């Protein structure tokens, strides 16, 4: 160890979530906030998301990813928040000692409070078991996005995209605009898994076919590069239907088959993970089971919108600052949030009875409803309800409860969130 410094709040990850958490922590009174970022610049994945449509909620304007990142970076810099780049955190101990590696060597930092905003990673080819050649030309959509938007390489000339997540849809448009041909987007589910607006503005606008209930069953190669994929229709159990196979000639296969919260540091720190989100399990202050370690953004659960990841991280940053300034908090009893009909998961997972202030809920629906009512119940009594049209698993729901509603949850012994038709 070269040295050991100490800080009130340390934020791990300098993407949109981390910058928002750091800004909120500073504004809540923590004056020696430190952001640790492994990349050569701040902004995280926003730097490669050059498409527009970011910031409608937070900045009331339509920005590209780099512009959105620049605004957050400026806000952090105006406050004089220290951000250390090229610094990889290798471990976080439950006593809040952080071990890092940078060009200066290995060093450790002790923090009064930590916010983990490590983002997420893409599900790779190995995780979905596609048969066929192990040749060049198979990329995750995010890798292709980095090749094209950051490094300036065309990832391919003729593409097939497997998976209709937002990144897959956005990459279909990107490859087309950059001069490539996108033959089709295949989706194993009977519906698109990304936002409807992306189906419209990324596929329909460019006449790119979306083939739902289809998957890739074989990857063909010639000279070490993809030469085509064999696609097939799938049945209700998502198994390929024999005889339905057809060839799609292409030189590139892009995979957009899901995102997984990046929880390596969290697991090592002993943070409990949630079986559905794959991310951390947190209470309504976004604190994990380890005192003083907070989690937010895509490492907590995968968001559809950067705005929502930032708003969530503001809560974590503020609560981390309070924790640091008050020298800790005593967490008493809590009630777990149950997910009822139509809800796959909800964040937070626990409500502390000792807390105060407003609670924000985010939830992922498990089914489609043309029209539904989202209800939050405390001991069977409906304390919040909102009518929603077009509820779909692809669109995250977000509700900010007022203090009175939040207090009712705090005194409840049973809390449930559900969709009523």
């Amino acid at each position: 160890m070269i040295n050991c410094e100490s800080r009130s709040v340390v934020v791990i990850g300098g993407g949109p979530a981390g910058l928002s958490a750091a800004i909120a922590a500073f504004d809540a009174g923590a004056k020696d906030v430190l952001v640790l970022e492994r990349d050569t610049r701040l902004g995280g994945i926003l730097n490669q998301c050059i498409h527009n449509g970011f910031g409608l909620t937070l900045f009331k304007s339509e920005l590209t990813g780099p512009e959105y990142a620049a605004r957050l970076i400026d806000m952090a810099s105006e406050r004089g928040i220290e951000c250390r780049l090229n610094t990889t955190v290798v471990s976080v101990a439950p006593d809040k000692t952080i071990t890092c590696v940078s060009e200066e060597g290995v060093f450790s930092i002790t923090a009064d409070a930590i916010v983990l905003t490590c983002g997420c990673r893409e599900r790779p080819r190995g995780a979905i078991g596609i048969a066929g050649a192990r040749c060049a030309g198979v990329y995750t959509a995010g890798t292709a996005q980095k090749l094209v938007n950051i490094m300036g390489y065309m990832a391919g000339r003729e593409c097939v995209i497997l998976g209709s997540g937002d990144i897959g849809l956005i990459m279909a448009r990107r490859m087309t605009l950059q001069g490539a041909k996108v033959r089709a987007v295949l989706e194993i589910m009977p519906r698109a898994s990304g936002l409807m607006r992306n189906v419209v503005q990324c596929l329909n606008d460019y006449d790119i076919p979306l083939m739902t209930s289809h998957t890739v069953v074989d990857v063909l190669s010639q000279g070490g590069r993809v030469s085509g994929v064999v696609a097939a229709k799938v049945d209700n159990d998502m198994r390929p239907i024999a005889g339905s196979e057809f060839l799609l000639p292409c030189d590139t296969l892009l995979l957009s088959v899901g995102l997984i919260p990046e929880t390596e540091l969290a697991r090592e720190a002993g943070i409990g993970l949630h079986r559905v989100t794959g991310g951390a399990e947190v209470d309504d202050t976004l604190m994990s089971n380890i005192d003083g370690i907070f989690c937010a953004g895509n490492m907590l659960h995968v968001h559809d919108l950067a705005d929502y990841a930032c708003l969530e991280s503001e809560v974590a940053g503020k609560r981390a600052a309070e924790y640091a300034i008050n020298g800790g908090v005593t967490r008493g009893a809590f009630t777990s949030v149950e997910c009822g009909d139509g809800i796959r998961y909800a964040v937070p997972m626990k409500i502390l009875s000792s807390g105060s202030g407003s609670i924000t809920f985010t939830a992922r629906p498990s089914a489609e409803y043309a029209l539904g009512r989202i209800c939050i119940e405390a001991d069977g009594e409906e304390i919040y309800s909102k009518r929603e049209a077009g509820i779909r698993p692809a669109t995250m729901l977000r509700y900010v409860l007022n203090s009175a509603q939040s207090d009712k949850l705090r005194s409840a012994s049973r809390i449930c969130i559900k969709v009523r038709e």
Partner: protein
Amino acid sequence: MEVVCTVCPRGCNISVISEGEGYAVQGNGCMRGKDYALRELTMPMRNFSLALSVAGGDTDVVAVRTSAPVRRECIAEIALAARALTLSAPIKAGDVIISKVDGDSDLIAASTVNLKEGT
């Protein structure tokens, strides 16, 4: 006619029905949705962005975008013209890359590329 709104992530399903001399719009969550749906039937407009190569910069690519929506039918042509450009650093976010690509919309830089150190 059915239109999926792309103004915000809600993605409202909007129906536009011919009514007398005008149109009735239903299903829009806000007024911007009504404008969007009517425009979608007459002249669809889009913002879009591109990644363009840059020589001599601290990064190899600059992100560019339209400063205001352009006619959807013009996108392919604008993209083709932009990809043929030879750009060099420095470029500042907001710099005009091509002026007046359609109407009053310019193609502007969305990221900053500084001169490579040592040049």
